[in-house]
């Protein structure tokens, strides 16, 4: 066989088929069968009729929304101040803000837990608050970085033009800078929202409770219930697909807005 560059992709393609496609097919199969291998919708109806699983779904959506909002409200001003500042070393300063990304999350959460325990005593008393604080602490750098990147690539002359045409600072921000930074916000939000719904280990470490979507998989896993676990994974996948579709729409409009300007 003659050597051809496109054949180099074959090993990776086979790898993807085996470790990405095949697991998902197995997941779908397990989600819609019972222990005897017969087709059933029980896992699906079971999820939507059980008050506990439904409650977990809504609770983790609430945690994810609040956490994403808090991260955005903290990260945007940080990214904005740094991107707009005149100092030459701002890329180094951003580095200081996102450096914790490279420290193992479990060690960072251990540190946070010690401090929160000192401040609050029993962490299980304020589960929602501590969930938001913990996940924010874990994922804040992932929100800062994309927003900073988008903001620092912005063409400064657009802002100047807006000012020259009589817009005040607030108008310039709301009508020029903010819309142009939407792509950064979108990629930051997608980095935080999904982990906030599924990353139950942060909560588990903080107060030994895991009342969040991802943990349902964990509990089925511990009980060797592959069928129930697969259904939860499938429902999570559906949410992820929906979310990805929504955010890629946002990205396109952001780009279109940029092109129009």
């Amino acid at each position, binding site marked *: 066989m003659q*050597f051809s*560059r496109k*054949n*180099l*992709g074959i*090993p*990776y*393609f086979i*790898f993807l*088929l085996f*470790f*990405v*496609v*095949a*697991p*998902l097919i*197995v*997941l779908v199969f*397990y989600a819609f069968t019972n222990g005897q291998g017969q087709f059933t919708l029980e896992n699906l109806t079971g999820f939507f009729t059980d008050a506990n699983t439904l409650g977990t779904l809504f609770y983790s959506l609430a945690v994810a929304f609040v956490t994403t909002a808090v991260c955005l409200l903290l990260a945007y*001003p*940080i990214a904005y101040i740094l991107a707009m500042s005149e100092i030459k070393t701002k890329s*180094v300063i951003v*580095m200081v*803000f996102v*450096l*914790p*990304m*490279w*420290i*193992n*999350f*479990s*060690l960072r*959460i*251990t*540190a946070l*837990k*010690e*401090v929160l*325990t*000192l401040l609050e005593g029993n962490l299980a008393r304020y589960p929602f608050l501590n969930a938001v604080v913990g996940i924010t*602490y874990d994922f804040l750098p992932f929100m800062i970085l994309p927003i900073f990147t988008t903001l620092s690539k912005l063409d400064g002359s657009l802002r100047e033009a807006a000012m020259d045409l009589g817009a005040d600072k607030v108008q310039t921000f709301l009508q020029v800078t903010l819309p142009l930074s939407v792509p950064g916000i979108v990629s930051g939000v*997608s980095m935080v929202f*999904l*982990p906030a719904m*599924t*990353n*139950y*280990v942060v909560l*588990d470490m903080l107060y*030994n409770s895991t009342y969040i979507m*991802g943990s349902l*998989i*964990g509990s089925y*896993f511990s009980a060797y219930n*592959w069928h129930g*676990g*697969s259904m939860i*994974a499938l429902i999570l996948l559906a949410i*992820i697909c929906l979310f990805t579709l929504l955010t890629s729409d946002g990205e396109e409009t952001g780009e279109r807005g940029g092109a129009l300007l």
Partner: protein
Amino acid sequence: MAKIAKRVFLLIMLMFIYLPILILAVYSFTSATQIGAIRGFSMQNYITLFTTPELTDMIRGTLFLALGSATIATILGTLGAIGAFYSDRKMSTLISSLNQVPVVNADVVTGFSICILLVVVLHVSKETFIPLVAGHVTLCAPFVFLSVMPKIKQMDSSIYEAALDLGATPFTALTEIVIPQIVPGIISGFALAVTLSLDDYFIAMYTKPAMFDTISTYVVNATKGSQTTIKTALWALSTVIFAVVVLIVVGMNVRAMRQEGGSRAETK
């Protein structure tokens, strides 16, 4: 006034980010078993960290796993990106979209689905490390693919054509012309892969052998346990990793600045 407000805000955020790590670092040098208590200076945590076999094995295992799976992921991802770029449009789109699945998917789902396929359906024992390595390669390779792809797109294709015209075989042209041009993408892909593997909890949790622990799975179990000597030794580990990360980042910045200075001097 506004300037001061900005600075204060940035400072508060830095404190939120760094205080817990720094407080833990200070207490790692004492014999205290919880923060807030005042005890004398002690190196005991560091001695425990580097002399307890359970801890050193766990650290070594995590590093081996990260370097091993990152190497496999880098080879697969790089070849995949080259192959996808030169394939016809349909194949190229197919590989790129499949590549996107593990990127957007939640780690819990990736780990769980690989566990089901390999362990439950195919009966591969977790003790063979195959599910664990497969899981980590699946986690990392797509990110290598994504960091190599832009470099291939930026590449000047005429050099490759020139090499062929001058009599190079396609294989030589690949190793001598294509690969050297995309090395920056391969290196950053590899670094990203190592970071992802080191930071992973969920995939390891669902696929690791029973007696093997990565830093993440070990720390998560230790925070729930009541063994205080292990708990405080982990404070020392956190401090060591923090110091290493700071050194690497400072080193990279210094190098980048020097290179920038150098290239500026050249253009002059």
